[in-house]
């Protein structure tokens, strides 16, 4: 340790705490600056009358929030967002569990199957949505064509008498389409997270179960699923956050239409705040979702950590 006394710089570089702070500080500062500052600014915007043209921040209290909540369109938009997120999570969890169990087993052609099933997630969302925009086209939809050929559409069709279903123009079908595309693209992410959970189960537990004569379904329901519950919660959290914070799919597919049936908070806040130039109201709208999101995140973190202790 004599050298440390002789060379203070060297001593510092050996100190765990000092190097730790030195290493962590730049990233933390960068993030705080880029997320913390805009976040505070978003709150400030929510209480002000700022627009694209007017840069001055005048405090106007809760007017924006009152105006936003008094807006019938916004209420529907809020409902849509919650509904889309919840409904798609149910399907995502079901499919992701099935797929994670499939892909943690060995089988012929696994590599290729995995490549295919990961494509929806790997493709940039907006480009994948372009593919679906074409699949659900009003006139040339290949899905409609299949339904037409099989007698579900067309004269005397079971679903409709016309030659097309107008996927993105019909209120209910457009909502189903948006949810479907979200499920389609988010399932791989949830699957990968669940796979991480399944592959981290200690093999001796599974071996023991096999020795004890536990069948596949029993092992699955009584050992695997409870053990990956915390990770399932994390998967759920991730995909909910991603969906809440995303407007890409609806932007490409419907721009919120028909009427407001597929408009969600992110998109509406973009349309009011950026396209409409009313930054303050746009920010207020986005803020409406935040307490909900935060409560959800904290709840899930609690569930996850409690399950881990057990």
């Amino acid at each position: 340790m004599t050298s440390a006394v002789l060379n203070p710089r060297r001593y510092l570089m050996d100190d765990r705490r000092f190097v730790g702070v030195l290493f962590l500080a730049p990233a933390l500062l960068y993030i705080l600056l880029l997320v913390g500052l805009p976040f505070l600014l978003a709150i400030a915007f929510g209480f002000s009358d700022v627009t694209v043209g007017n840069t001055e921040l005048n405090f106007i209290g809760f007017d924006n929030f009152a105006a936003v909540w008094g807006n019938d369109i916004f209420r529907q938009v809020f409902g849509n967002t919650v509904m889309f997120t919840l409904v798609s999570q149910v399907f995502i969890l079901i499919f992701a569990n099935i797929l994670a169990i499939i892909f943690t087993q060995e089988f012929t052609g696994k590599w290729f199957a995995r490549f295919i099933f990961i494509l929806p997630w790997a493709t940039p969302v907006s480009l994948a949505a372009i593919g679906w925009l074409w699949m659900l086209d009003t006139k040339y939809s290949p899905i409609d064509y299949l339904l037409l050929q099989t007698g579900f559409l067309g004269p005397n069709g079971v679903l409709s008498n016309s030659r097309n279903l107008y996927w993105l123009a019909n209120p209910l079908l457009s909502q189903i389409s948006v949810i479907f595309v979200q499920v389609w693209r988010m399932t791989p992410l949830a699957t990968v997270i669940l796979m991480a959970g399944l592959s981290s189960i200690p093999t001796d537990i599974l071996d023991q179960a096999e020795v004890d004569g536990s069948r596949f379904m029993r092992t699955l329901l009584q050992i695997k699923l409870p053990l990956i519950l915390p990770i399932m919660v994390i998967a759920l959290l991730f995909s909910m956050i991603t969906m809440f914070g995303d407007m890409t799919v609806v932007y490409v597919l419907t721009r919120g239409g028909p009427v407001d049936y597929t408009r969600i908070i992110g998109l509406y806040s973009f349309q009011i705040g950026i396209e409409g130039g009313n930054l303050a109201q746009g920010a207020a709208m986005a803020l409406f979702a935040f307490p909900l999101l935060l409560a959800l995140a904290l709840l899930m973190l609690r569930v996850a950590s409690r399950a881990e202790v057990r």
Partner: protein
Amino acid sequence: MALLVWILQNFWSLLILSFATLLGLRIAYRLRKYGATRAELSYILRRSPFYLVVLIFCFFAAAPFLIMFLHSFKTDGDLYRRPQPFIYRQDPTFEHLESLFTNTAYLDFIRNSVIVGVAVVIITLILALPAAYALARLTGRWGERAGILMFLVYLVPPTLLFIPVFRIVVMLGLKDSPLALIVVYPSFTVPFSMWLLQGFFKAVPPELEEAALVDGYNRVEAFLRVVLPLSLPGIISTIVFTFTLTLHEFIYALVFITNTSRRTLSVGVPTELILGDVYFWQPLLAAALIIAIPVGFAYNLFLDSLVQGFTMGAVKG
């Protein structure tokens, strides 16, 4: 080219035929290896529902991509006037693919995306490598809290932040500049990379660093010369996923960049390749597919490593 035309014209029969051949070969292989016994046959029979499920999922995942591929080469007459979406009634054409590269800003989009992606990867590595190491090894409770803070930051969605960030970007005069994206993207790539890298760093045996410290390296040198080289595979997969995150990002790119030739792929393709209400479907579908396939390959190649990093980060963190 001739081969591609032939493939396109016989797309579905080729698809089914090649699948059937592979299946047949596989069954034949098993029967040869284990003998065509009753047990073996019943094994194959019991196994088939499993493959059927895989097949159904694969079909749903792949359907739009198959259609994208098939329709990218259709002539307008084939695509619009006599809608028969699954076969070619006229010869496939490459003119749409050519016009995508010559008449549109597609190459600009690719260039912009690469510039932004590479710059963001560099910034992310500079910030996240040491920070992840600090979280994994150097800091105790304090670092754990910082880690949770990072995780919470990841939960603040871009839909909440884009309006104030847009304001700042305009104020700094960065609107329409790729620099705006380069500065803002690390706000989500850094937390993500830290989470992932932390897992990889934890997988390096601490004894190796201790040995380096005994040999007279200090902490920083031990990190640079011992830990970094050992976690290279993890770092490479972090690079891949960081790059693709920037490729995926939509909202910031849509709001910050409004100049056609400055746009990136995720926004450029769905907004600029469309003229008003007129969709040029073949180039549009081709543009999407050309990006989807390589990214899909990269994901599949590095998926195991992602799962590993994620598990390490989650289990030991």
